[in-house]
């Protein structure tokens, strides 16, 4: 199995804030300013990414999923721990990782033509020779479903879905092995979203890509992912094969998350899975981060942090109560019905 590991994260943490610059530290020492709060965006996260799989990362705002994605893509350095993947060769050749962003409006340079947006990186990294760039760009545009005759247009001349296709073509231009998709379909309309999801699946087959697919939309993740990491306030609370996670969630948070998703087949009924708001990551609750909202929390949950442990082959969860909680059938959350 280890041969297939294309990227491995070990005890990765990321903190923001804390030690300010010299002036801020001086002021804090003199009691003239409060020290800057520390946000532990990602805390002690470990996982392996296998070649060719789609690893979904789900969780609500502030759970650290985007920070994790940015660390994997190399846009942020971990504060602690390490991410082991293939390093790019110095300045030339393919880049192993690329990222696709949520907002297709702000992630493309408005002053560049499509041919430059897609063609610049492979030229700089000498993946194609200058004379072949045009044909290379046309081929990529074609594969991503953009008419190659639009190569001289600017990004504002395209719709949201087409811009996202340009972003995907740009990422693929440097022949990556791993694509980190951070909410890559969230800003798109339903019918366009389906087109982009299908494109991701086609490209995966065509180029043998591995995806880290970050999304708050569980429907999309369930559709596309092979394995899933569920995050809550910086920590992984559950991980495992997508089918098992969705059919048999073990952690109370995962359960609430899945039951809370509106479904087409659930009519005139809304479940209110958990009370309360997500706590601030500046001052997370002690013990299990989820305990203030957890319907099953016990005294132990308030003081002792549950470790992420194996609960079945390929499955892990961080909850003290897993043996004692059985789940089946319809959700037990309070439901409100219309009429």
């Amino acid at each position, binding site marked *: 199995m280890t041969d297939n590991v294309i990227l491995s994260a070990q005890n990765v943490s990321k903190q923001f804030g804390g030690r300010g610059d010299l002036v801020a530290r001086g002021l804090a020492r003199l009691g003239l300013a409060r020290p800057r709060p520390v946000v532990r965006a990602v805390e002690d996260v470990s996982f392996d990414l296998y070649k060719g799989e789609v690893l979904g990362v789900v969780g609500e705002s502030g759970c650290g999923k985007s920070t994790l994605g940015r660390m994997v893509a190399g846009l942020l350095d971990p504060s602690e721990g390490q991410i082991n993947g293939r390093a790019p060769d110095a300045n030339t050749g393919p880049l192993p990782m690329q990222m696709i962003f949520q907002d297709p409006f702000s992630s493309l340079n408005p002053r560049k033509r499509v041919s430059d947006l897609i063609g610049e990186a492979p030229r700089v990294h000498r993946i194609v020779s200058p004379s072949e760039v045009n044909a290379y760009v046309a081929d990529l545009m074609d594969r991503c479903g953009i008419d190659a005759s639009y190569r001289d247009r600017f990004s504002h001349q395209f719709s949201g879905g087409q811009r996202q296709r340009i972003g995907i073509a740009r990422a693929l231009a440097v022949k990556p092995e791993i694509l980190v998709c951070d909410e890559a379909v969230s800003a798109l309309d339903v*019918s366009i979203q389906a087109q982009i999801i299908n494109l991701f699946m086609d490209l995966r087959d065509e180029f043998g890509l591995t995806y880290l697919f970050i999304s708050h939309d569980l429907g999309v993740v369930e559709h596309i992912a092979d394995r899933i990491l569920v995050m809550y306030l910086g920590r992984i609370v559950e991980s495992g094969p997508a089918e098992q996670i969705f059919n048999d969630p073990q952690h109370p948070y995962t359960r*609430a998350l899945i039951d809370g998703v509106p479904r087409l087949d*659930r009519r*005139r009924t809304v479940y209110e899975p958990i009370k309360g708001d997500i706590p601030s990551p500046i001052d997370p609750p002690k013990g299990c981060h989820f305990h203030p909202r957890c319907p099953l929390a016990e005294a132990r949950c308030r003081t002792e942090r549950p470790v992420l442990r194996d609960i079945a082959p390929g499955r892990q969860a961080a909850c003290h109560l897993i043996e004692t909680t059985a789940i089946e059938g319809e959700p037990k959350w309070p439901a409100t019905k219309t009429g």
Partner: protein
Amino acid sequence: MTAVLDVRDLDTSFVSPSGTIAALQGVSLTVNTGEILGLVGESGSGKSLTGFSINRLISPPGKVVGGQVLLHGQDVLTLGEEDMRQLRGRRIAMIFQDPMMTLNPVLRIETQMYDALSAHESITKTKARSRAIAALDEVGIPAPEDRLRSYPHQLSGGMRQRVAIAIALLHRPDLIIADEPTTALDVTIQGQILALVQRLCRDRGTALIWITHDLAVVAGIADRLAVMYAGRIVEIGGVDDVLDNPAHPYTRGLIDSVPARGTRGKRLNQIPGRMPALTDLPKGCAYAPRCPRATAACEAMPAIEPISDTCAVRCFHPLTGEAS
């Protein structure tokens, strides 16, 4: 059941130097007491514009150019500006997508709720305060007395939306128009807000129009469903009829586009192409260029015709009685 709102052939246009853009054309819908109507469509389909037109919140160059909006039989489009101001907020309330934009960032919640109350009735500050506390309590805000002193930025997104709902409910309106109020919220918070709105409307018999792009959300909350495409309602009917036996090919396409249980790893049935711009609508049915069932007949505009007691569809070739 009596119709609280009866919209008939509503037309809204935008006048620009390059010509008039018909953004809404012939929109007709009714909402009964205590009923929740889901208004679904993609960006640019005119769903929000419908809500704004009903409340006469369209500003130039936009203009409602035709049709009637009957609230308990009275046409609000013929009301004077002052009468309309009295009606907005009191009989028709709106909840918007982004509560940070609807709440004034420099006023305390208390001030904003007092302003909303005193706009429509003469009320003392003490009385207004107790009404505000009761309203916040009703929408599930803990420690409402303390929260009244807060500014909007001190509240979370879910709490802000609860405040916006509390303000909308202050005058016990006949109709609430909710424009994507949960789109910016997390799943667990969305569940809380959906349950809250559903409970409040059911208990008080308030009619609600829930505007959204998310079919699954309206499946959970709505009694009836209207699907919009390029400024027109293409299908309207009971939620079960529309979702289980969609008659319009666009509704079918939309439902198939949603990733759901049982589609794992399979290709989604995508709709090819995208919605045409309103400046460049095809002749006849706007969906025809993307539609697998389109024929030469679709070059004319189909009328919206009833196909059963509860459903109506705007299509020459509706999918009737065919298994999906």
